[in-house]
Each structure stands twice: as structure tokens, then as C-alpha cells.
């Protein structure tokens, strides 16, 4: 309600609509659920630790200290040590770089492919729309783990196989969503108006079309990113992704399995890392999607 009032005042008056300290960001956050801010802070912190961490702490994730193996968390080893006496925290930071990068890359490539196909389908229509949407229907049904394993069987395990596999099934939700949005926007009067005014197709696409897609697509991107993260972890868990001794959250989980009883921290830490990262991006995606001040649902 309050946001609507400020908006309408902004539209009708010439005086500065935003008092000092109430910039666009503040106004945007005001319409979001608290989890959006929390998710952003958590995810930002995780990214900062993953990017800057190794430079700050200069911990060696590969250094073995067999006497110190399977130790509980302490001042020296924040999250304890693993079965070879390696620092779990250092491995967590190092491994997160792999897991998060692979998930992020596969999501970004999927977005580009999916949105392009979706917009083409929505604007061109005809046989292209029919065939691409049927393919989406069918691909969505196939579990992504199965496709990934199948590709690994052919090309062998590794980063590239993982990203390709995740992209093959990953682009479909974006295609479906952006086709729907394209159809919606296409029916808008301002698109008609732009066409009547003789604007070029490319101009309409960039100025009037894409801006409408940014918010919903980015919401779904964050929501899917959490899901991808879990899938990447699962595939590494099976030994199909990053190869040891390189650390990776899924791989660390798998390696912790035999020591479940003696050193539960070994299993809890990498899982918690995946969980918190996935939860934070889910909160961001959810926050982008839903305006708290407009309860419509």
C-alpha cells in the first residue's frame, strides 16, 4: 500500500519523490521479505570467503599431518581434520570454489541458451515454437543425474562434461518461462505502438522486450542455482565430477562416509556448506520473485 502511494506521488509531482536516505535500493528492499536481505548477505559472505579466503588465511588444503588425523574442531583447525590430517576448513574453502563455479557456469550457459530459444519461440511462433516446446516438455522429464552419468560414461569425468550435462537439461525451464513471458509482452499495446511507429525489430527487442524479462528470469536463475549446486554436489559425491585429490564439497561428503561415527564433523561441514549456500540463493530468488507489499498469489 505504502509503496503504491509513493509511486503515484512520484508520478504526479515534480518535487524529489525520494527523501534523503530513501534511495531506490532502500525502496526496493522495503518491498521484499526479510529473507531476501538475509540471503544476499549470506551469499555475499560465502562468495567473499571463497574468492578471498585462500589469500587471507594462506591455509594449505593439501597439507597432510597424519598424527593430527580426524581431530575435532579446535583453534588451529576450525573444522577439525580429515582422515589424512588435512585441514577441513581449508578444503571447504578450496572445494567450494569448484562446486560454486561449476554450478554458476552451467546456470549462466543454460540461461543464455534457454532465454534465446524461449524468446525466439514466443516471437516467431509456428513450427519452431511447436518443436522447441515439445523438446522442452520431454527433456524436463529426464532426471539430470541420469543424463550426466550417461555423458560421463562417454566422455569421462571432469568439469567440462559436468557443465555440458547440466546445461543439456538445464536450459529447459528458462525456455519455457521466457516463451510465456514473450507471449505476454508481445500482446502489450506498447509493443504494437512501437511497431506502428516504425521502430526496428532489434530496437523493440532491446528497449521494450528484454527489460520485462530481467526480473522474472533472474528470480528463477537464483532459485535454479540452488538446485544446480545440489546436483553438482551429488555428481561429485558419486565421483563423476572433480577428481581427487582436488577437494570438492560433494567429494568431501563421500570421503567422510567411512568416518561417520568417529568424526561426524567431516560429514556435517561440507553438507552444511551446500545447504547454506543453496538456502541463501533460494531466499534471493524468492525475494526477487515476490513483492511483500502486494499479497496477490
Amino acid at each position, binding site marked *: 500500500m505504502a509503496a503504491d502511494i509513493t509511486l503515484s506521488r512520484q508520478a504526479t509531482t515534480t518535487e524529489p519523490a525520494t527523501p534523503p536516505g530513501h534511495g531506490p535500493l532502500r525502496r526496493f528492499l522495503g518491498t521484499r521479505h526479510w*529473507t531476501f536481505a538475509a540471503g544476499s548477505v549470506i551469499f555475499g559472505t560465502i562468495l567473499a570467503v571463497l574468492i578471498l579466503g585462500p589469500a587471507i588465511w594462506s591455509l594449505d588444503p593439501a597439507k597432510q599431518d597424519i598424527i593430527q588425523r580426524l581431530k575435532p574442531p579446535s583453534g588451529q583447525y576450525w573444522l577439525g581434520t580429515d582422515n589424512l590430517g588435512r585441514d577441513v576448513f581449508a578444503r571447504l574453502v578450496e572445494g567450494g570454489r569448484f562446486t560454486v563455479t561449476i554450478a554458476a557456469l552451467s546456470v549462466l550457459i543454460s540461461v543464455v541458451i534457454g532465454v534465446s530459444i524461449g524468446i525466439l519461440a514466443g516471437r516467431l511462433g509456428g513450427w519452431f515454437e511447436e518443436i522447441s516446446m515439445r523438446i522442452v516438455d520431454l527433456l524436463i522429464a529426464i532426471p539430470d543425474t541420469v543424463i550426466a552419468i550417461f555423458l560421463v560414461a562417454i566422455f569421462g569425468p571432469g568439469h567440462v562434461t559436468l557443465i555440458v550435462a547440466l546445461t543439456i537439461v538445464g536450459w529447459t525451464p528458462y525456455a519455457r518461462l521466457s516463451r510465456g513471458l514473450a507471449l505476454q509482452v508481445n500482446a502489450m499495446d506498447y509493443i504494437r505502438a512501437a511497431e506502428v511507429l516504425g521502430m526496428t525489430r532489434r530496437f523493440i527487442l532491446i528497449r521494450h522486450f528484454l527489460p520485462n524479462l530481467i526480473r522474472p528470469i533472474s528470480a528463477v536463475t537464483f532459485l535454479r542455482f540452488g538446485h544446480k549446486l545440489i546436483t553438482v554436489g551429488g555428481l561429485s559425491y558419486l565421483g563423476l565430477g572433480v577428481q581427487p585429490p582436488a577437494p570438492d564439497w560433494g567429494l568431501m561428503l563421500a570421503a567422510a562416509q567411512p568416518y561417520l561415527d568417529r568424526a561426524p564433523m567431516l560429514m556435517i561441514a561440507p553438507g552444511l556448506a551446500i*545447504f547454506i549456500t543453496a538456502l541463501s540463493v533460494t531466499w534471493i530468488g524468492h525475494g526477487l520473485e515476490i513483492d511483500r507489499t502486494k*499479497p496477490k498469489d
Partner: protein
Amino acid sequence: MWKIALQRVAMLILMMLCVSLLAFLVPMASGSDPARTILLSHGSDLALDPAQVEALRRELGLDQPLPMQFLIWLGNAVQGDFGNSFASRQPVIHEIGSALIVSATLALSALAIAVAVALPMGTLAAMRPGGRVDGGVTLLVQTFVAIPEYWLAPILILIFALHLGALPSSGWFGPTSVILPALALSIRPMAYFTQVTRAAMIDVLNAPYITAARARGLSMPQTVLRHGLRNGSIPVVTFFSLWFASLLGGSVVIEVIFAIPGMGRLFYEAVINKDIPLLQGGFVAIVALAITINTLADILYVVINPSLRGANGR
């Protein structure tokens, strides 16, 4: 409506042809000679007799041109003959059959748990959208979506198997061994079912017939039970079939963790052992099941909803 159904089935067949072609090309892509691999897997000495290899190649039809080979392979595959597994020497189709029963049991148990929790939770949230309960349920759903099932599984094992000793930590031998893997597997569908139920129930509870029922003097719980749930659970049914299809072959990690002889683990082991016939058969079977169930759900959805039967039925 028939036109839509026909279209869907035609697309399904086309897709299956592509998938079969992919599966057929696996041994070529991985650069191994099936005849040699088979002979080696039979435990012959390392120096293979070239004549023997040649004979087997002819027997397998490998001397034929590639398109011809594909047709032969496809003809056998359609009749359920994918050859024998390298590892167990059993016909692939038998292995897949018994694994499917295991996976179906596991998937149904997991989905039953999911629905049992999701229906009441989603309904409660929908009673007062934006309220405190709704907020709590939303948070819970987001948490469930973010939990990796391969993390939940060891935690469950740690608590219920190692500390309490109440349930077996792995294996597949009767009802008690189903509980932990089903629980771990149920967490994500539970989250999605709750969301779907919530959205559907909000729609339903705003419908005029709910107001009418309330006006006739039915209490809110009575209204929800008699009129709301019946309509609100329709979308859940659709989702149920889709999740069932994806869990049939997609619960690889859980099946590996709990050592369950299901479809996912069978497929995974085929990859690890480079068991090509099993890999081909498994892939074709999982994909065929997934997209067939999906297509059936699509068609059923149109059958249930007469409003979708118009000319523009997409």
C-alpha cells in the same frame, strides 16, 4: 483432443528414436570394440585370437554398415533384447526388471511420505495467506528445497542407525530398510508438493462454492475437508506422476548410499564397470519410462480438464 494425443505420441516416438541412437553410439564414442570387450569380459586370456574376434564381430553384426547395425540393434531393443550384461552375464532386460521393482517401491514410499506431510502443511498455509503459519511453512519449504538428500541421508544414518540402533543403515531387506532412504528421498518432493498444494488451495478457497458452503453453516475445517481438499489435490496428482517418473531412475545417490539394488545404482554401476549393454539398456529404459509417464500425465491432464480441450490445447 485426439489430435493433441497423437501429436504427443508422435513426438515421444521421435524422441525415443534419438535417445536410442545416442545409446547405440555409446560404444563407438567411447572408442571400444564391443567384440573385444565381450571376449575380454568372458575372462579369456589377454592375447585375443584375431579369428575369434572376427567371428564374434560377424555374429554381432558388426561387419554390417552402421545404419544397418542400428536397425538390427533397434529391432532387438524394441523386443526388449539389449544383450547380456558384461558383469553379471544375465540378460540386461531381467536386471532392469528387478531393479525397477525396487526403485518403484522406494519412490512410492518416498512420495507417500511427501504427500502425507505436504497436503496438511500446504492446506494450513493456504487458510490464511500471508499469515504467520503461511510464513513458517514457506520458510520450511525453502529449507527443504536446499537440503542435499545425500547429506540428510548420512545424518539420518548417524542418528537412527548408529546412535539409536533403531533402523538398518543400508541394504534392502524388508520394510525397515525402506524407511531411512525413503525419508531422505522425500524431502524435496515434500517441499514442492507443499507449494503446489498451497497455491491450489488458495485458489480453491476463494471459489464461490466455498463461500456457499460456509454460508450453509459448515465450519471451516468441514468445508476444507469436504470441498477444498478434493479440488485442491488435483495438481498434486499430476506432480506425483512426474516425481515418480524422475525418482524411478534419478535416485542414484540415495541408492548408492544405502546400497539399494535399484535402477539408479544399476545404471551407476554400469558406468563404473563400463558395462556397455547394461548402460545402453538402462539409459533407454529410464528415459523411455520418464517421458512416457510424462506424456501420459499430459494427456490425462487434458482428459480431466475439459476446458483445455479447445483448439488451442497446448
